[in-house]
């Protein structure tokens, strides 16, 4: 299969073209723009296979996806940062309405002040919207995850966000294996999920409900999303059969003697992976799937390795609390018999993680208390 030097953004766009979509709804925002531009070029060449429509805002782009998905069409859009925040109402609505929309979010800091660096707070602050979230740490992973996201999303009738860091992944060129459409079609065919809007048939879709009805619907949505890890394992198996690669919802490297594990999502997890040989007795858990949060899988992994300390790399900060991934992890390990201490390295603003920072954090950042956080600039 042909390898090409492409950016993470191009990888996402090519995956969308290979999967085959009925509609791409586009609105530009740095650092996502290259995705919709690449898809526009496919449309210009006549090989997109679906419609390409430029909308007047990110909100409108997702709303347009909403309408097309209601007709049973496969749709895609991409955004970043302020665009994602602007979509917020529609993001909730897509999940409640059970539209299997796949959207790429390229991480970028939300202002003020303006900032382009890849803080993950844009997507993490959408954690309660009922979307699945998968974080990627390289261009190949982006390509593959977009394909997997369509399969997962359409099976569960829940929308899925594929997320990667601005610039570090979106603008970095890597060698990516790009299978031809025929090969991809062995993994994912045309959409088969049911249309909600059926002309000729009455249906009052998503109209006024009672709290009691909502409770039942939320309960169903929750139960369905909790099926994602198991289902993803199956999808991954099929993916491996076709492409010879596979991913899990968490990817772990834990040496036998490791009592400390670093948990990270996105591009920084690759930095950690690269630095592992230099970090004595330290392991890595790369968190790919953030929603649903793989609590069970993480806890059994920590338990199996008798991990004492987890250092979370949080390229975000929920001001007033701390890093979001650390908060999620603390909640997850609460039920363990011997929960590890959870420390947090906060790289808000999307500042880069250096090996030096990691070393300093492991040497001096792990305080006496079982809960603590350090700021990236203090660990340089």
């Amino acid at each position, binding site marked *: 299969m042909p390898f090409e030097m492409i950016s993470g953004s191009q990888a996402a766009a090519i995956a969308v073209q290979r999967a085959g979509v009925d509609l791409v709804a586009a609105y530009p925002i740095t650092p996502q723009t290259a995705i919709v531009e690449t898809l526009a070029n496919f449309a210009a060449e006549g090989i997109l296979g679906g419609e390409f429509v430029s909308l007047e805002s990110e909100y409108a782009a997702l*709303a347009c996806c*909403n309408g097309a998905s209601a007709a049973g069409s496969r749709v895609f859009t991409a955004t970043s940062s302020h665009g994602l925040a602007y979509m917020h109402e529609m993001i909730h609505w897509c999940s409640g309405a059970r539209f299997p929309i796949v959207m790429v979010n390229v991480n970028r800091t939300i202002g003020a002040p303006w900032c382009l660096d890849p803080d993950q707070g844009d997507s993490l602050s959408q954690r309660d919207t009922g979307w699945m979230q998968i974080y990627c740490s390289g261009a190949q992973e982006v390509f593959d995850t977009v394909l997997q996201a369509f399969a997962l999303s359409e099976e569960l009738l829940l929308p899925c966000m594929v997320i990667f860091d601005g610039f570090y992944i979106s603008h970095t060129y890597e060698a990516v294996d790009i299978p031809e459409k025929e090969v991809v079609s062995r993994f994912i065919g045309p959409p088969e999920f049911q249309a909600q*809007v059926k002309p*000729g048939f009455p249906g009052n879709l998503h109209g006024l*409900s009672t709290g009691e009805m909502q409770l039942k619907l939320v309960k169903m949505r929750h139960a369905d999303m909790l099926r994602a890890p198991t289902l993803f394992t199956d999808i991954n198996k099929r993916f491996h059969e076709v492409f010879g690669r596979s991913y899990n919802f968490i990817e772990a490297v834990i040496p036998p003697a490791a009592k400390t594990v670093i948990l990270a999502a996105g591009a920084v997890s690759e930095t950690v992976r690269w630095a592992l040989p230099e970090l004595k007795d330290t392991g890595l858990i790369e968190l790919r799937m953030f929603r649903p949060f793989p609590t069970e899988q993480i806890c059994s992994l920590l338990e199996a390795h008798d991990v004492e300390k987890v250092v979370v790399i949080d390229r975000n900060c929920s001001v007033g609390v701390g890093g979001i991934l650390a908060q999620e992890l603390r909640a997850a390990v609460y039920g363990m018999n011997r929960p590890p201490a959870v420390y947090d390295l906060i790289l808000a603003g999307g500042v880069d993680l250096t090996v030096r920072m990691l070393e300093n954090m492991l040497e001096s950042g792990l305080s006496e208390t079982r809960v603590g956080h350090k700021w990236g600039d203090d660990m340089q």
Partner: protein
Amino acid sequence: MKIEELNRESELLYSGHNACPGCGAALAVRYLTRALGPNLALVLTASCWSIIAGMPPLTALKCPILHCPFPSAGSVGSGLKRGLNAKGLHDTTVVVLAGDGGTFDIGLQALSGAAQRNEDYIFVCYDNEAYMNTGMQTSSATPYGARTNTAPYPLFKEGQKKDIMQIMAAHSIPYAATATIAYPEDMEKKLKKAKEIRGFRFIHILSPCPPGWGTESADTIHLSRLAVTTGFFPLYEIENGSTWNLTQYVDEKIAPLSDYLGQQRRFNQMDAIRIKALQEEVDREWEALMKRVNAERRENIF
């Protein structure tokens, strides 16, 4: 239209809906679904009609209704039409239904975007001149001088009603028309004409609201007619943003505006000076409209 031509089979709105007695919007949707059905899909944004349609799984309409968030109607309509096309369902008429809030205010950006792209659907605004579902708050479609719950006495709505038709004309869309429920044949004719046109079509329907306007439910049709005969809401259509056709008699503007205002409690704090100011505004608008409408068609009716 003859009464015997109306049959139950062509009705898509059933009894048992949740509209208030005398609701203009219920009649407007009854006429529009009858004119455009039965192969019809409705996108419905937050408005009185979110309630009127009934609580799922019940429904008052015999066509699919896709509810959507307040500012999104114009864009959801774009997606639905394109999505249906992708599934080979080219013949379904997609109608976006929004109130004045969802059209003039919070929905304006999506409306403008869809109009500019010349999306292939019909956008219908039923205009009851305020946020009536939330209980009569000022919108930019509220007329000058009206009292609302966000402009309570001695306050009143300042500034003129936004001229949505001129905004739509400026988008050069294939078809735009005004209509109101006292003239059902005119409304039906315009809707059927719109149905045969491809591209973006906009219908602006004035829909009296008894609890909001402070009127008797039995007076809805009467008020709808007075809005036309006072020149407050002229009936016309615009083709391609440039050809304006009057669809009422020129000499149908016969009544003083005070006849219309005087029957609505929302205007009852208006003094003579403000009524005069509004009358002058209506006359100015009428004169401007007369200059725009096709001279040959000025005498035209139905």
